[in-house]
């Protein structure tokens, strides 16, 4: 009678059901919602949350949390503009920035694992340090810097009607899926998130795994910031602010346990989609930002409730 899926799958499936239901509802309400142009736009928007959420997913799976995402996004956008306008080739600048994001992530990871600083505090701290740095560089140019051409092209180009960004996102999702499911790193990550002490005694490289997740999160956040800057055409200090909540919410909606040890990136993808659809849908009802907040909260409850219900009926 009921489809018996393994636990992990059913939580993710529930997230996609919610996402699809919302999309269907939005299309009924406003037929242009499902138009090709609009869907392309949604995909681009969703990819921002998607990349920010990629790193967040890995960190959360390992039992941690990364709150430095908004500042790293701003770093990506603003620093790229500064370097590009200073003459650095965009390709090099992007590579360098992603590397810096990874380095900052490594600092986060070391603080959390070696010094045993709670992730909430560690990542707030490094985020604030980045904020301070950006405030300083922001002083020397105008408060909003223009994004370089390279970032803009990344975002604007299409291949066969699908935005390049979305394809890159899909590629990243597939790689992430493979890494989590089929590599030693993925196994070690799930083990570490489930019970760090047990994993360590069994020979798992707990520290290396967790530091890697924070490094990946830093790199992904910087990249997301670069994309975002390319899309808006500008970079400014608070550009990443909404993405803190969104990245974590996407992971939660996707069915991962925020304590770590279970979940998948596909769930976060569905979560990103859900949040993006909502953000596009609500203005058509003439609802304010306030209402958007409330709806976000309700959807989180709905999605988590749905995934718990789905899990209850499965193995």
């Amino acid at each position, binding site marked *: 009678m009921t489809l018996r899926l393994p636990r992990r799958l059913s939580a993710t499936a529930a997230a996609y059901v919610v996402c699809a239901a919302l999309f269907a509802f939005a299309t009924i309400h406003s037929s242009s919602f499902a138009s090709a142009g609009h869907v392309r736009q949604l995909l681009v928007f969703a990819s921002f949350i998607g990349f920010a959420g990629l790193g967040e997913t890995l960190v959360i799976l390992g039992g941690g949390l990364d*709150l430095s995402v908004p500042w790293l996004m701003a770093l990506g956008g603003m620093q790229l503009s500064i370097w590009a306008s200073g003459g650095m080739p965009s390709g090099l600048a992007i590579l360098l920035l992603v590397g810096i994001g990874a380095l900052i992530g490594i600092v986060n990871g070391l*603080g959390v*694992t*070696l*010094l*045993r*600083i*709670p992730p*909430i*505090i*560690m990542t*707030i*701290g*490094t*985020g*604030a*340090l980045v*904020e*301070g*740095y950006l*405030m*300083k560089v922001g*002083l020397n140019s105008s408060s909003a810097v223009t994004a370089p051409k390279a970032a803009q092209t990344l975002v604007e180009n299409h291949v066969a009607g699908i935005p390049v960004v979305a394809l890159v996102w899909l590629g990243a999702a597939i790689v992430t899926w493979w890494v989590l499911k089929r590599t030693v790193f993925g196994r070690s990550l799930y083990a570490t998130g489930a019970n760090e002490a047990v994993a360590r005694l069994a020979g798992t490289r*707990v*520290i290396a795994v967790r530091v890697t997740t924070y490094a990946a999160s830093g790199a992904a956040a910087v990249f997301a910031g670069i994309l975002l800057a390319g899309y808006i055409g500008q970079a400014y200090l608070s550009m990443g602010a909404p993405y803190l*909540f969104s990245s*974590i*919410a996407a992971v*939660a909606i996707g069915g991962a*346990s*925020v*304590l770590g040890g279970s979940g998948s990136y596909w769930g976060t993808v569905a979560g990103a989609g859900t949040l993006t659809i909502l953000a596009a849908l609500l203005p058509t009802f003439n609802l*304010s*930002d*306030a*209402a*958007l*907040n*409330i*709806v*976000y*909260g*309700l959807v*989180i*409850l709905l999605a*988590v*409730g749905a995934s*718990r219900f789905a899990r209850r009926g499965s193995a």
Partner: protein
Amino acid sequence: MSAVATPTREKARAAGISLKRLPRGQWGTVLLLAALVVADFAVQPNLADVDQIGLLLQTAMPAVLLAAAQTLAVLSRGVDLSVGSVMVTTNVLVATKLGGIDGSHMGLIVPIVAVGAAAGLINGALIAYGGLEPFVATLASWAIFNGVALLILPTDGGAVPTTITNLVIGKVGPIPSSYVGVAIVLAFWWYLRRSPLGVRILAVGSDESRAFLNGIDVRRTKLLVYALSGLIAGLAGIYLAGATSSGTPAAGDGFLLPSLAAVVIGGTSLAGGRGGIGLSVMGVMVLTFITDLVTNLQLPSWVAVVANAAMLLLVVSLRSLPNVLSRKETP
């Protein structure tokens, strides 16, 4: 005959349930706070004055209340991400529903306080009876109550009755009322810690299944924890309104992370069962004096941000370091 590993009475006292002595690890935080206070006084000698400190406490009071609320959730092995949002909800209600500066509808203050408790009850119900993770449930209510606050008052404004303002910025006898506020918070914790509910909260946070085995109604205890947390967060909103004389619907987020930081700096364990509001109040004071010190040094704003962050990380590292070094474990 056998080698008996009985703890000596001295060791027991140091680790025991008496509040007369702080657990050994917390002496570090006390020293740190003392050092910060001295440094701050050195930079700004005018600060060493009852009224000036009272002003500092007044600014810190909403954070004190939110840290207290957060502590309760953390003690039960949970977290309350909605404390900032509940705060701004009652805050904007005070600024819009009490009838302006004259406070013609002051009677509505009671339902407003109840709103905070009700918000907490909703959190508690979702967590205790709905089985949701505290992080996720309060993540959702964080968004929801932020939205509610924005709906009631979309931008900063409104008018706060002078009764409340006077209560907050006024004096009780010779001393500013903010001292009394802090004292009330500490007294509240002293009482709670010694009450059966307090023991139940610590038991649930320490080991939920064992608490259940002992006949503790775990779900009801958690419900009460979050209800109290919401109530206190609501009070913080009222206080904030009195302190700023207006409603500030967007201020909640800026208070959330400091509430968590204060709990961690104070020494309450995020795993539940150990710690207390007294410690978190110390944590708030540490953060307050760091900020005040940096402000008084009159550095450019970006340096201030960096200095704040650096000090936060330094403080937390120092707090962990003794544990890390003595930990008899290989990485």
